[in-house]
């Protein structure tokens, strides 16, 4: 049933692609201009809807990669070879094209500088996307808060935002990478999956009550959250977001 737009309702709007940025061989960032964007908080996401000529529609949810302070809304999309939506977004979309989306959505997996910290972010693969928004927000408005990102990636080539993460580290964020599948011979950072020993090194002790955000594939998120709770962190201090192919 058609329903008129009501203030506060979530309505679909058109976003114009102003730029496309290759992040890795598989990931691309979409820089969007939205005429009717009411702002967002770091960690929120949008739903993107594609409509085929025959009317078939597919919806997917993507984390917002840009900070509230940024001019444009950015999404970073990982291409899934058997995906219905992501190959179009990464391969077919061109600057000037329009994309239908709604948002911002979600109020749970959100960090605002006023919440303080310490801020601990644990990313598995493209789970780093909402943390780019949080770290940009931190750089703009929260640098007095200790912030640490532990980012688990298969290889160095799969690391999204590598140069920007280096700049954020220069600004005072503690950015640590672990490579799980292969690493350069001279690799100085962590190797292998995040295990309890590494997590204990990286996480602040429970009595410092870090705000913990975990984003990644389901297995990664659950392993990290369970280990932190076993270490004595309060479940209420740990926020999780699992990603995977979703849709309607």
């Amino acid at each position, binding site marked *: *049933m058609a329903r008129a737009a009501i203030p506060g309702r979530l309505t679909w709007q058109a976003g114009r692609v102003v730029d496309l940025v290759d992040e890795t061989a598989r990931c691309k960032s979409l820089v969007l201009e939205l005429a009717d964007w009411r702002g967002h908080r770091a960690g929120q996401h949008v739903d993107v809807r594609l409509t085929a000529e025959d009317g078939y529609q597919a919806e997917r949810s993507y984390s917002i990669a840009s900070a509230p302070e940024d001019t444009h809304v950015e999404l970073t999309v990982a291409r899934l070879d058997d995906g219905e939506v992501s190959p179009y977004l990464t391969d077919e979309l061109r600057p000037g094209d329009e994309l239908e989306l709604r948002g911002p*959505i*979600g109020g749970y997996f959100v960090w605002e500088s006023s919440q303080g910290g310490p801020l601990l972010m644990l990313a598995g693969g493209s789970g780093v996307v909402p943390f780019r928004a949080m770290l940009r927000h931190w750089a703009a408005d929260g640098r007095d808060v200790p912030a640490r990102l532990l980012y688990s990636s298969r290889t160095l080539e799969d690391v999204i935002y590598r140069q920007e993460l280096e700049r954020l580290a220069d600004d005072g964020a503690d950015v640590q990478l672990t490579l799980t599948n292969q690493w350069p011979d001279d690799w100085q950072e962590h190797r292998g999956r995040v295990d309890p020993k590494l997590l204990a090194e990286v996480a602040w002790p429970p009595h410092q009550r870090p705000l913990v955000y975990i984003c990644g*594939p389901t297995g990664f998120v659950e392993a990290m959250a369970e280990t932190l709770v076993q270490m004595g962190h309060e479940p209420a201090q740990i926020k999780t977001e*699992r990603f*995977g192919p*979703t849709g309607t």
Partner: protein
Amino acid sequence: MDALDGNAIAGPLFEHFGEEMTTTVGTCAHCGTRSQIAELVVYTRAPGTVVRCRHCANVVMALVPIRGELRADSSAFRMEQAPDEP
């Protein structure tokens, strides 16, 4: 396929209830566990979406699109400050 969490259905729930829902707290009618919607277990690949309690794994919500409109049965998740059903 791995289960997701309530963040994955934030859009459809907003569409259905008319407000942001992922931080809404409710109680599982089966086991009494209190949680936020974002913390629930979500399966999106069933016909429709099935939402389960993370503690007891019983179904607490089901979302099914019927002719373009989302029907939601959330009777087994007793929400505190639940919005009015549309």
